[in-house]
């Protein structure tokens, strides 16, 4: 249970422990390792978006002096159905399913030579018509990506590009709509976008003579890389060791594998360590973006602003293989609101685009763009303040979620109240300016974490976990350990360890590290505190029940009758050997009760009515974080998520030509926000403690990307009177609407 206590370190802002390495260039990222004898691997990628592979001839490449290995899908086993799609995404087997789909790989003594050798590989394709939109994928007579696929939970009507269907329902929405005074029925659309992490995927892999595979790579989860690589290669998990490097951003995109199994094959064939680094173009074409979506939404409300019923049907792009986050989207869309009658249906759709991966609150930004745009329209229609409308329907403790369970304490109402009280909400607007607001919700996640805390002989602590530090988590782990042991946070040394050193830990993602791994650190630190009491009891020759632990000291408990000066952690650490040996604490858990996080965002835009260009001129993001362990990094997550959401709303999108070739696979034309595109982003922390966590922590990282798409669109509506139901709101798209159809 979350404890009401006074914290010494929680809520402070110490300098992160890995900070100096990161500002001096010393930190080692994915592409920064070199090993003696290392060679370079490169991938041959499909020039077609959809084609059958007739034959691959690698003999000419193999004959080149300096080319030490060439591999194709035939070098991978194909007997584990659980990773069949993953293996085919890593190296195409029967078909290529998107432009840039990897098909063969070469390792050579230089990167330039490896690239030249790719040109010597001959692939014969039978080119097929590509499927490039949800509409095209679902059309009757559409080319089918996988003829054998039949989705579960659907009537079998023959081959389809629908890979899965999900449904959530409660009550009788269709008849309930009759009780509504206003019913709005709208369609919304978003395009494929990329996480846009600045560090391309990279790894160095060494396969040893005994078959052991050592991987150094930038990943959100060393253990995920270990298990996925072992499964794809068909070997025991214990034959793979993964050392996570520092990671240059991921946002969900570095939770799977692309290069590592291929590099392992190349290393095995060549007997050399192999480095593989994606180019930026490869990252855009062939890593895992977030899919576009189409959402049909219908909501009915009474004149006084109570929602009575809602229905939603949604389709999400999965890319070449099944697995869009449509189910999460379906579970999210109505979660902020409390009403009785609903029906939600979602479809996972495959098409000839890169296989999507997780991107920050997967599925939620797309569906929230829909529901929060519609809520804005409803507020206008009913002439109710948009915050009041949301408050009238807000989810709170006890609200039953569309997918069944009831909320425990959540902070939606608190973030709405904070938004209304914020000076931003009442600030005057200038010419061509408008204000929008939107709320957002994300479940957050628990999952598996381990932590080891080792006390050193001078009373400092080493905290070992397996979560790559993607945004300051070392500092959070150190704060929680320091809090429990009552020592200075600088006296804690947080370490991110490899898969043979740290206990099993799930990925850095799902807004789970500070929550779940932090919880493990708290538990492990408490074990150390208990052990310190045992040691103090030895020193004082008393019962351990007579010893208490407070603020970094063992001291006699009240009424024990003992009269000893308190012993500090350092005092006892000095006597470790003579009191029983080393003092280590270890804890592990499959964390339950990740508290969902709500946010309310306010956005002001200024629109150039003659060009359709939108500038975000003020932005406030308010979020319930449960408890902020290191407020600076909490704010940073909120600001960064908001900035990504603004990019998604305004300019980011994958642009494909008719043949399915990505036309903007670079930062120049993908158009993520640059420093001069954004205002300061006011991150407001609300703390409604998560009742499950010892400190009240909720995950933070994902919710901030959920509201901005609608907040921006609603602000554009307020500024122009034009409601954009399709993203991005890029200048040509907005101008077309501003001028009315025909003129542009």
């Amino acid at each position, binding site marked *: 249970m979350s404890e009401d206590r006074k914290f010494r370190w929680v809520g402070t802002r110490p300098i992160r422990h890995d900070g100096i390495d990161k500002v001096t260039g010393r930190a080692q990222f994915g592409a920064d390792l070199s090993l003696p004898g290392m060679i370079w691997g490169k991938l041959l990628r499909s020039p077609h978006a959809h084609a059958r592979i007739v034959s691959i001839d690698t003999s000419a490449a193999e004959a080149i002096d300096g080319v030490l290995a060439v591999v194709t899908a035939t070098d991978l086993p194909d007997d584990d159905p659980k990773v069949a799609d993953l293996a085919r995404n890593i190296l195409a087997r029967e078909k290529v399913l998107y432009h840039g789909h990897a098909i063969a790989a070469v390792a050579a003594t230089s990167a330039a030579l490896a690239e030249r050798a790719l040109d010597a590989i001959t692939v014969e394709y039978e080119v097929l018509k590509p499927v490039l939109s949800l509409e095209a994928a679902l059309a009757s007579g559409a080319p089918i990506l996988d003829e054998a696929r039949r989705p579960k939970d659907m009537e079998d009507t023959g081959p389809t590009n629908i890979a899965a*269907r999900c449904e959530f329902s409660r009550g009788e929405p269709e008849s309930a709509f009759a009780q509504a005074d206003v019913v709005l029925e709208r369609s919304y659309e978003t395009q494929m976008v990329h996480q846009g992490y600045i560090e391309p995927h990279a790894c160095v892999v060494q396969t040893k003579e005994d078959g052991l595979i050592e991987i150094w790579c930038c990943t959100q989860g060393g253990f995920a890389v270990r298990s996925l690589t072992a499964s794809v290669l068909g070997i025991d998990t214990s034959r793979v060791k993964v050392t996570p490097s520092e990671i240059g951003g991921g946002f969900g995109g570095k939770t799977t594998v692309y290069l590592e199994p291929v590099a392992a094959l190349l290393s095995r064939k060549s007997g050399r360590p192999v480095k593989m680094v994606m180019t930026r173009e490869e990252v855009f074409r062939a890593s895992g973006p977030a899919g576009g979506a189409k959402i049909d939404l219908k909501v009915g409300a009474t004149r006084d602003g109570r929602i009575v019923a809602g229905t939603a049907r949604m389709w999400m792009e999965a890319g070449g293989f099944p697995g869009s*986050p449509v189910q999460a989207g379906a*579970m999210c869309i109505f979660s902020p609101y409390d009403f009785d009658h609903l029906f939600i249906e979602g479809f996972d759709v495959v098409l000839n685009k890169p296989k999507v991966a997780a991107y920050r609150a997967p599925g939620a930004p797309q569906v929230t763009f829909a529901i929060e745009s519609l809520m804005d329209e409803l507020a206008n229609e009913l002439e109710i303040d948009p915050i009041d409308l949301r408050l009238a329907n807000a989810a709170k403790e006890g609200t039953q979620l569309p997918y069944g369970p009831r*909320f425990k304490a959540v902070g939606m109402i608190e973030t709405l109240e904070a938004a209304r009280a914020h000076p931003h909400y009442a600030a005057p607007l200038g010419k061509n300016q408008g204000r929008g607001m939107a709320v957002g919700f994300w479940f957050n*996640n*628990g999952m598996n974490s381990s932590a080891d805390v080792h006390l050193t002989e001078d009373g400092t602590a080493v905290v070992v976990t397996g979560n790559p530090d993607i945004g300051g988590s070392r500092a959070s782990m150190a704060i929680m350990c320091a809090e429990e042991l009552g020592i200075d946070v600088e006296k804690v040394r947080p370490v991110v360890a490899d898969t043979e050193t740290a206990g099993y830990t799930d990925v850095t993602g799902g807004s789970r590290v500070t929550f779940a791994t932090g919880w493990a650190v708290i538990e492990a630190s408490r074990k150390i505190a208990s052990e310190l009491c045992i040691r103090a009891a030895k020193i004082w020759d008393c019962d351990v029940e007579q010893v208490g632990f407070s603020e970094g000291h063992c001291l006699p408990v009240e009424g024990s009758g003992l009269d000893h000066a308190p012993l500090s952690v350092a005092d006892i650490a000095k006597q470790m050997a003579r009191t029983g040996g080393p003092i280590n604490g270890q804890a592990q858990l499959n964390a339950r009760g990740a508290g969902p996080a709500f946010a309310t965002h306010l956005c002001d835009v200024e629109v150039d009515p003659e060009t359709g260009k939108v500038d975000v001129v003020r932005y406030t993001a308010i979020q319930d974080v449960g408890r902020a362990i290191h407020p600076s990094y909490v704010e940073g997550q909120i600001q960064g998520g908001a900035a990504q959401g603004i990019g998604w709303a305004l300019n980011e999108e994958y642009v494909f030509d008719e043949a399915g070739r990505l036309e903007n696979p670079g930062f120049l034309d993908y158009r993520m926000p640059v420093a001069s595109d954004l205002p300061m982003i006011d991150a407001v922390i609300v703390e409604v403690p998560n009742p499950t966590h010892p400190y009240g922590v909720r995950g933070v990282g994902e919710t901030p990307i959920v509201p901005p798409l609608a907040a921006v669109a609603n602000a554009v509506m307020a500024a122009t009177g034009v409601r954009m139901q399709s993203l991005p709101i890029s200048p040509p798209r907005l101008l077309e609407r501003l001028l009315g159809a025909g003129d542009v």
Partner: protein
Amino acid sequence: MSTVAIPSSLRVHCEHHEFIEVEGGSVHAVLAAVDARFPGFRAALGDSFAVAIDGEVFQDALYEPVAPESEVHFLPALAGGI
């Protein structure tokens, strides 16, 4: 008796019940009890699912205890979530 909420997509396997009452001290036992009454439910739910016990969501929690007064929701596993 614990109350089990059936996800709408699986109600077809349970004579369209929204809730059913079963005996069972753990998720595993609850599942077995539902499957005994409605054979095929377990198979339809599949291997990867999450479960909410009294509002708390668990991933991979087959052996989590379930109290007699508890409400249990079986949920499709959360894909992504990162």
